């Protein structure tokens, strides 16, 4: 019963947005041709899912996001760790990283095409770029806030350097890794449509772009909602991981 009530509460904000959506449409403020009704979008979505190729679009986009995220994290964790640990390194890299992060990935597309062509690698590279810079900042800012007291304590208890790393630094790093992954995941999804500007035949971004050349608003809305759904789903998974492994934190990821 409680579980059910919790689930309903989680749905409430979406119900609210859909209600507003209907209100705007019925109010006549926006020409009906410019704003499809929610149920029309829902029917379009069902039709797309039945059509078959939409599942491939979803799969390709999810795969690109995951690859970009995973490679981004594989590099961001050790790099963020080292930069976070060392003040000198931090002072050196901080402006650089902020510069590169501030570049909109879309501006890099011409360069990516020149260097990496228009295949899968190019698309994943853009997502990797976006994930890496988002994650590395979260990592090193988190790391630099780790209090040295725990390391001092473990030294007085007789811990070796390796034990300090494995038993103190790793558990203290984990929350920042998870936060970095969540931030990077959001950024990767946000960059997806841009990444699929690179001559993508398939993928949710490509679906949205194709639909826009035909002014097919229902498909555009359906595509956006699908992206939102998968972004939320993957974020919920990471949140569940946080709850499971970071129950010790004062206020673990909500």
């Amino acid at each position, binding site marked *: 019963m409680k579980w059910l009530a919790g689930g309903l509460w989680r749905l409430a904000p979406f119900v609210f947005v859909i209600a507003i959506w209907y209100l705007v449409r019925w109010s006549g403020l926006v020409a009906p041709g410019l704003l499809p009704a929610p149920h029309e979008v829902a029917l379009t979505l069902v039709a797309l899912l039945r059509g078959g190729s939409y599942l491939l679009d979803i799969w390709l986009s999810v795969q690109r996001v995951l690859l970009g995220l995973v490679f981004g994290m594989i590099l961001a964790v050790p790099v963020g760790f080292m930069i976070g640990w060392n003040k000198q390194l931090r002072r050196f890299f901080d402006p650089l990283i902020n510069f590169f992060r501030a570049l909109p990935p879309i501006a890099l597309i011409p360069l990516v095409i020149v260097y990496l062509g228009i295949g899968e690698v190019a698309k994943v590279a853009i997502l990797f770029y976006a994930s890496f810079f988002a994650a590395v900042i979260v990592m090193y800012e988190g790391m630099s806030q780790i209090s040295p007291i725990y390391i*001092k304590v473990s030294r*007085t*208890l*007789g*811990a070796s350097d390796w034990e300090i790393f494995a038993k103190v630094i790793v558990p*203290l790093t984990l929350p920042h890794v998870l936060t970095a992954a969540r931030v990077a995941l959001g950024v990767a999804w946000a960059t997806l449509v841009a990444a699929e500007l690179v001559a993508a035949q398939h993928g949710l971004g490509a679906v949205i772009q194709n639909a826009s050349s035909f002014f097919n608003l229902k498909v555009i809305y359906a595509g956006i909602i699908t992206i939102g759904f998968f972004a939320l789903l993957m974020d919920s998974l990471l949140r569940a991981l946080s709850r499971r492994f970071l129950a010790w934190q004062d206020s673990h990821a909500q």
Partner: protein
Amino acid sequence: MKDIKVQFRGVSKTYGALEVVQNVTFDIAEGDFVSLVGPSGCGKTTLMNMLAGFTSPSSGEVLLEGRPVTGPGPDRGVMFQEYGVFPWLTVEKNIRFGLNLSMHRGMPRAEKDQIVERYLELMRLKDFRNAWPKNLSGGMRQRLALARAYAANPHFMLMDEPFGALDAQTRSDMHDLLLGIMQAERKTALLITHSVDEAIYLSNRVLVISARPSRVLEEVEIPFAYPRNRDLLDDPEFIRLRRYLRDLVMKQYADQQALG
């Protein structure tokens, strides 16, 4: 004559232009409970850090069993001002942390369990063995830090204002708990405190530290035998010592205030 365990020999410490410790000399003998009393910012933590091995003197030396201190080690348990309880470990695992290190590899599991149980019991943390530190009160965290330090079985206990953040009742509870455990385990202790009462009640020797830079102004023997209890607080000699030490310390507080 008791064995001399720790010697501060003409120890000075400067941070850049700031002179924090100036020519400090004193000894700690086996079984001693020595308290350092002095105003905030005068350099007490720095003194303790030199014995703990986190900083070294700018001149002079700190000897441990006759040899200069080169770094931290499990022979010197430290209770930091900020406790440093590991937030990612439960109460029980915090206590077990030291025992699970490779240096205790040879110890049988059953013996480790026994040690953990003993300190859970002594520090009245049994009901909270599986709790996260975030859910503990200040007093419980403090007892946990003490239990963790003791479980590693150090020779010396170095304690930096461990009771500062506790309310009066918890604080006096902790005093008796600490006295009990010190009595049972015959450790040697160095305590940093603001409280003259605390220093007299717990120690057999009190060193009054001057305003910065730290010097040892006065060494006072506390003549009361252990075990002690709260009746001591009404003892005329206790009251006399308290008045004497308070006057000394108050003067140093005023001088340190003037330093800013």
